[in-house]
């Protein structure tokens, strides 16, 4: 169930991410739910507190309480910054202290339009052609896809740690940490 993306947009983002971080013998963006990370970022203010900064100090994955899922409250300036970054300045004077700011929501809505409503059903080569034709937008989505593939699962992507598992990265390890032998040995 998408938070901010429409069903059609959700399918396109999912198809884009599948081209950017494909599935092969290991899980890719599709299995890791990268689209949900991106949808969660675009819709961060649908939650209270907004899903901007996961909590701390521990996730519970190697001990301690699982506090990452309790997102931080934002102060007034942080909320202003992140609303401006995500929603855009929309002509609101309090968001335009240095002029208008395009928001991620607008960037995605327009970028997905350019990729075409039929993107998800196009062939792989055609999908790649459209992605290469829109390099700036593709770069932006790819950056988010990397965050969603290899960031903490509490942000919506990296489902079950699939992104970490296939590259042999253990993710957050507090409070367990690593032993001196693990640090100094091969």
């Amino acid at each position, binding site marked *: 169930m998408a938070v901010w993306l429409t069903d059609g947009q959700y399918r396109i983002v999912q198809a884009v991410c599948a081209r*950017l*971080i*494909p599935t*092969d013998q*290991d899980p*890719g963006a599709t299995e890791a739910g990268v689209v949900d990370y991106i949808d969660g970022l675009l819709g961060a203010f649908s939650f209270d507190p907004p899903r*901007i*900064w*996961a*909590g*701390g*100090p*521990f*996730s519970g994955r190697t001990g301690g309480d699982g*506090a*990452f899922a309790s997102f*931080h409250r934002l*102060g*007034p*300036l*942080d909320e*202003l*910054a992140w609303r*401006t*970054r995500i929603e855009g300045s929309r002509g609101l004077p309090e968001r335009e*202290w*240095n002029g208008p*700011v395009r928001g991620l929501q607008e960037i995605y809505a327009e970028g997905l339009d350019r990729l075409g409503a039929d993107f998800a059903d196009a062939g792989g080569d055609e999908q*790649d052609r459209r992605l290469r034709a829109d390099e700036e937008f*593709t770069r932006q989505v*790819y950056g988010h*896809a*990397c*965050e969603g*593939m*290899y*960031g*903490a699962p509490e*942000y919506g992507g990296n489902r079950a740690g699939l*992104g*970490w598992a*296939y*590259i*042999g*990265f253990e*993710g*957050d*390890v*507090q*409070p*367990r*940490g*690593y*032993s*001196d032998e*693990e*640090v*100094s*040995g*091969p």
Partner: protein
Amino acid sequence: MTARDFDAIIVGSGPGGSTAADVLTAAGWSVVVFEKGRNHLIDTGDPTRLSTDFSNDEIKFMIRHFLGPDPLLEPRTFRREESDGDRTHVGEVNNVASTVGGGGPHADGKVPRFREDDFRMLSEWGPVEGASVADWPIGYEDLEPAYAEAERLIGVAGEAGANPFAAPRSGPYPMPPGPPMYGALITSDAAERHGWHPYPAPTAVNSVPYDDRPACNNCGFCAFFGCPIHAKGDPVASLRRALLTGRAELRPETFVSRIMVRDGRATGVEYRGPDGQARTETAGHVIVAAGGMETPRLLLLSGLEHPMIGRNLMFHLQTYVMGALPVRVHGHKGRSVTHVHDDFVVPDAASLAAAREAGLPWFKGGMVEHAGPAHPILEAKLAPWGPGHKDAMRRSQMREHLWGFCMQGEDLPQPSNRVDLDPSVRDVRGVPALRVTYRPHAHEQAASAYYGPMMEDCLRTAGAEWALTYAAPGAFDPVPMSRHVAGTARMGTDPAHSVCDPWGRLHDVPNVVVADSSLFPTGAGYGPTLTLVALAIRNMGALAPHRGG
């Protein structure tokens, strides 16, 4: 004299401001610490409790500006020189964390001392054309007791005697070194074969329980991350002591916009708290510890007119030499940097000859850190998208195999390198943003060009299949990123050529005292933290008997 709110207002809660708060409250002063960033470090209601906000979270710390400043809220601007026009870049310019504790929580805690000649560069090495090389008004011997005290207060792990180039010490480090990282053992061995002298990095990270804080458990989320278990000797130690006296108040999310000055004396500050309302607070002294870039900004916003304010801005010219080692070095296990060497800090006959060939009387490099990148989002963003992505991530040429050196190249002071106020870009509060005008001197570029290939050779000795060198700031990315900033309110005896006197007091407004690396006349090839803390211990100790102003 009218009643004052506090004996001192301290602007900034980083290593300098926290040290000032500690020294002054111990001497009976009442202080308020204003910090523009948020508080993720300590419970102000019960300072024995440390915050739980830090975490092993690459998104939160590396991408979403958790420690601040958010470049959208507080943009800085950059140009290489005046002929570039008003600016060529708006956004992040060498940002250091803006949070309670300042740069402390984000740093990985390497805290070397400077050497004796770092305090007398002009008399030891001589002038360089285009640079304002100067002696410090104090020597290493003046600062040694404060260095020792600083190491004890913040808790430093290291091995006395391991670095043959180190200045004399009055005693051992408070803690032994922590466990060496695997990659650093490989490059240390190669460095020794090249005749260099790697040693355990002096590190403000607990190797054993210290000061009621636990030993580091090597989680690997060190540089740029706050420590979830508070094993880092960030300013939490000094801030906690200051708060526990009951004479210190900490006010986060509070931006000081102006020091109020009347008849050559500061009377207090104007500030805006979390509610955005402008207010004032009065005090007998104002301690400015906002960092090498925000400190000159505040002095300029206050209308102070000394022509040297903001000038002689120094960073480090960082020379990264990286290569692919055949083994997996797992740079994500350990405390970011465990080994360094100082051989390039000390000119020798060969480097002096190379300097002369480059048209310079001499050059110095800097401390060399042995390290590699550690985190997967960073690696992924540099990997290709498409069919090659997964293979690139599985092979992990960067996160698992890339290892090498970062030389913190000494940056010579130049009056034309400066911080001033941008003519039109504003922060979210409507206050002028700071603007950096900066280009490296031939000195640091020549040193980088000389030492870079030597480090590449060493990496091949260590087994690297290939190695490459990248110096920053460079032609492709002129915006500095060293996080080391100094020199913008330099101290000296001559009021015409320095902003502050040898005790950190503004020549023009002596009850305003600078307590950060803005004071440094020269920058050395070492990170600034321990030296600025030692200076604050010395200068605040001298100020403490003069509470009345």
